[in-house]
C-alpha cells in the first residue's frame, strides 16, 4: 500500500471504532462524575448513549433537543469519539448510517420538524438493515408549531413516516432515568435487529431535571451486531438464518459488501425487476420484528385486584406521570383502576391492550395529541371495551384532575 501519508488517527486517541469493554465504560463513568446525578432528560439521553458505547453523534440544532448535541460536542472528544453538526437533519441521519456501517454505534437527536426531514434516510436504514438510534424530543406541530412546548404528536410518524413497508422499534420514556435506560435499550435493540430505533421523548421530559442513577457495567447488557461467521468468498450480506436477521460485515474489513436502498437479493445487488425478491425482502423486514414482538414489547402494569369490571387507562411517555397521580386519587375514591403504561410504542403492544380489555369495561387513553395511540388501542380492543380518548394539545401536560374527572364522570 502506498505510504503517501499517514492516517491522522495512527498515533491519535481519535478512534471511534475502538472495542467497547468494562474499561471504556469505566472511563465514561469517571467523565460523567458521580453515581447519582441531577440532570435533564436531554442530558440523560447523551449519557445513556456514551454508556452504551455510542461514539458517533451527528445532529442539527433544534429546540428542544439541542442540549443532547451540546453535551455530546463536549464529551465525545473526551472519549475519542466524534460529534459533528451537520447542515440539516437529512445529513445527520446519512452520517449516522455511514458511521454505523463503518462499525461505530451512532445516534442523532432532533424534534418534530427535523424528524420529518429524517424520514427519507430512516427508510434507507430500515431497507439496508443498519443499526442506529434516532431521538425525537417531540414538540407541538404540525410544522414549526410550538418549539419550546412538549407534545406526543409524532407517535404515528415514528412508525409510518417513510414510504413503503417496514417495521421499526419506538420507545417512550416517562422519567429522566428512563431517558438514560431506554437510550441504552435502544442501542441494544438496534444492534440486535439491525434497524433504526426511535426514542420518543418530549420537550417536557427533555428539559425536566430529575435524579438519575448511573448503572454499573455488570448491571447492564450491551449487544453488538452479529458480524460475519462465513469466510469472505461465501459471505452474502442479506442471506439469513431462522432469525431472519442478517449478519453485518463492517466496511473496511475486506468483505466487499454492496449495500443499496433498491430492492436487493441476498447478495446485496439490485433485484428491482423481481416480484419474488421484493416480496421476500419486505416481508422479512417486517417479520424479523413481528416474530420477536414478545421479546421486544415492554409495558408496565399497575392493575387493581380482581380481574373484571375495572376501568383501564392506557398511557405512555410523559403523560404516564399525570396518570400515576390520577390513579392514586381514583383508588382513594374506591375505584378499580388498571393502568397500562406502554414503554414500547412500536411494535404496538396489541396483545397487552387486548388483555386489558378482558378486564376493563372502559379504557381511557390520555395523550398530548388529537388521537394517535387511541387508534391502536381501539384496534386491539376490537369492541370489547369502550375506548375514551382524553386529548390535549398546546404544550401543557394533563393535570391529574382532568383524568379523574373524565373517569368519574363516566362512572355516574
Amino acid at each position: 500500500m502506498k505510504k503517501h501519508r499517514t492516517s491522522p488517527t495512527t498515533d491519535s486517541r481519535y478512534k471511534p471504532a475502538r472495542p467497547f469493554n468494562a474499561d471504556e465504560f469505566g472511563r465514561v463513568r469517571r467523565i460523567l462524575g458521580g453515581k447519582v446525578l441531577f440532570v435533564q432528560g436531554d442530558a440523560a439521553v447523551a449519557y445513556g448513549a456514551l454508556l452504551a458505547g455510542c461514539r458517533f453523534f451527528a445532529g442539527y440544532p433544534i429546540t428542544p433537543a439541542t442540549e443532547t448535541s451540546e453535551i455530546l460536542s463536549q464529551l465525545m472528544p473526551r472519549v475519542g469519539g466524534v460529534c459533528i453538526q451537520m447542515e440539516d437533519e437529512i445529513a445527520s441521519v446519512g452520517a449516522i448510517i455511514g458511521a454505523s456501517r463503518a462499525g461505530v454505534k451512532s445516534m442523532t437527536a432532533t424534534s418534530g420538524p427535523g424528524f420529518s426531514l429524517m424520514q427519507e434516510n430512516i427508510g434507507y436504514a430500515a431497507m439496508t438493515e443498519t443499526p442506529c438510534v434516532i431521538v425525537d424530543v417531540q414538540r407541538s406541530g404540525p410544522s414549526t408549531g410550538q418549539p419550546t412546548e412538549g407534545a406526543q404528536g409524532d407517535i404515528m410518524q415514528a412508525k409510518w413516516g417513510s414510504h413503503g413497508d417496514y417495521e421499526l422499534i419506538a420507545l417512550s420514556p416517562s422519567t429522566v432515568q428512563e431517558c438514560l435506560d431506554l437510550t441504552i435499550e435502544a442501542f441494544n435493540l438496534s444492534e440486535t435487529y439491525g434497524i433504526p430505533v426511535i426514542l420518543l421523548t418530549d420537550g417536557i421530559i427533555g428539559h425536566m431535571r430529575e435524579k438519575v442513577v448511573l448503572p454499573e457495567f455488570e448491571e447492564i447488557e450491551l449487544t453488538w451486531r452479529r458480524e460475519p461467521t462465513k469466510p469472505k468468498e461465501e459471505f452474502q450480506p442479506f442471506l439469513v438464518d431462522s432469525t431472519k436477521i442478517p449478519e453485518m460485515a463492517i466496511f473496511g474489513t475486506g468483505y466487499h459488501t454492496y449495500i443499496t436502498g433498491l430492492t436487493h437479493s441476498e447478495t446485496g445487488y439490485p433485484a428491482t425487476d423481481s416480484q419474488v425478491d421484493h416480496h421476500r425482502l419486505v416481508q422479512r423486514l417486517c417479520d424479523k420484528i413481528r416474530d420477536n414482538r414478545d421479546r421486544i414489547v415492554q409495558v408496565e402494569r399497575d392493575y387493581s385486584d380482581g380481574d373484571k369490571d375495572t376501568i383501564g387507562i392506557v398511557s405512555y411517555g410523559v403523560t404516564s406521570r399525570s396518570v400515576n397521580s390520577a390513579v392514586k386519587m381514583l383508588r382513594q375514591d374506591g375505584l378499580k383502576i388498571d393502568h397500562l403504561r406502554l414503554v414500547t410504542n412500536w411494535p404496538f403492544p396489541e396483545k397487552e391492550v387486548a388483555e386489558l380489555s378482558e378486564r376493563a369495561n372502559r379504557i381511557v387513553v390520555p395523550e398530548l395529541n388529537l388521537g394517535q395511540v387511541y387508534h391502536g388501542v381501539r384496534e386491539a380492543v376490537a369492541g370489547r371495551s369502550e375506548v375514551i380518548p382524553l386529548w390535549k394539545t398546546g404544550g401543557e401536560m394533563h393535570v391529574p384532575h382532568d383524568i379523574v374527572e373524565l373517569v368519574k364522570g363516566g362512572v355516574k
Partner: protein
Amino acid sequence: MFRKAKHIREKYLEENMWPSIFCQACGIGTVLSCALRAIDKAKLDIDQTIFVSGIGCSSRLPGYINADGLHTTHGRAITFATGIKLARPELKIIVFTGDGDLAGIGGNHFIHAARRNIDMTVICVNNYNYGMTGSQLSPTTPIGGVATTSPYGNIESPFDLSALAIGAGAPYVAKWATIYPHETMLAIKDGIDKEGFAFIEILTPCPVGYGRRNKLKQGKDYLLWFKKNSIARSRYEKLSDEEKRSCDKIVIGKLNDLEKPEFTREWSRLVDQHFVE
C-alpha cells in the same frame, strides 16, 4: 495497453453485475475506467477503499466495483461518506455522483462537505441532465438546452460545479471531459492523493438522453463538441484580459490546488487535547 486493461478488469470489476445498465455511447464507462486506473496508480488498498454514491446513472458505479459500496439516497451520498470517514478515518472514500444528484437535490451537502474539507474524492459525472429518469432539466443544463422538462429550451442559468466547489472551499478541484481519459485519470489520482475534499468534474456524453435532443446524437458528436468548446487552463492563462473576456469556452484542467487543514486531522488534534485517560 490491453494487458493493463485486463489487469484492471480482473482486479477491480464485479463480474456478476455485467452487462451494465448504461446506454450505447454513454460516457460513464469511461469515467469508471479512469477512476479504476487512478486507484491502481495511487496504489490504494481496495479493502480500505469505500465507494459511496447517491441516485442516478453515475451513482450505479459502485455496484460494478468489487469493493465495499454504499448506494444511498438521492443527493445524500456525501453525508453517508462523511459518517464513514469520521468513524474510520483510515479509510479512503470515493464518491460517484452526477450533476442532478450533487448540485440539484444534494447541493447543500456538497458545499458543506467542501467547506469542512473532509478527506474524500468526489467524482461528478456532469452530463447536463437527469439521465436515468428520462432526460429532464438539471442544474447544469446550458441555457437553451432542450430537456424533457424544458421542451422550449432552458432559461435558467446553469451552475459551474467546479467554480461552486472552489467557492465553497474545496482545496482540490479539476474539470475534464471524457475525451481526455488520460488527463481525467491523472486528475482523479491527484484528488485521491490530496488530503482533503477533492472534486473532479467530468463532462460526460449522454447521447441517448440529452444528446439526441441537442444535436449531439452520437458519442462522437459529444467528444468533438467537448474538444471544440473547451480550453486547457494553461492555455487560457496565457490569453490577454480582453481575449479572456470574450472566451466562451469551458476552462478545463486543474482549477484549484491548495493546502488546507483537513477535518479528521483537526479532529484528531482536538481529541488528543481533550481525551480523558
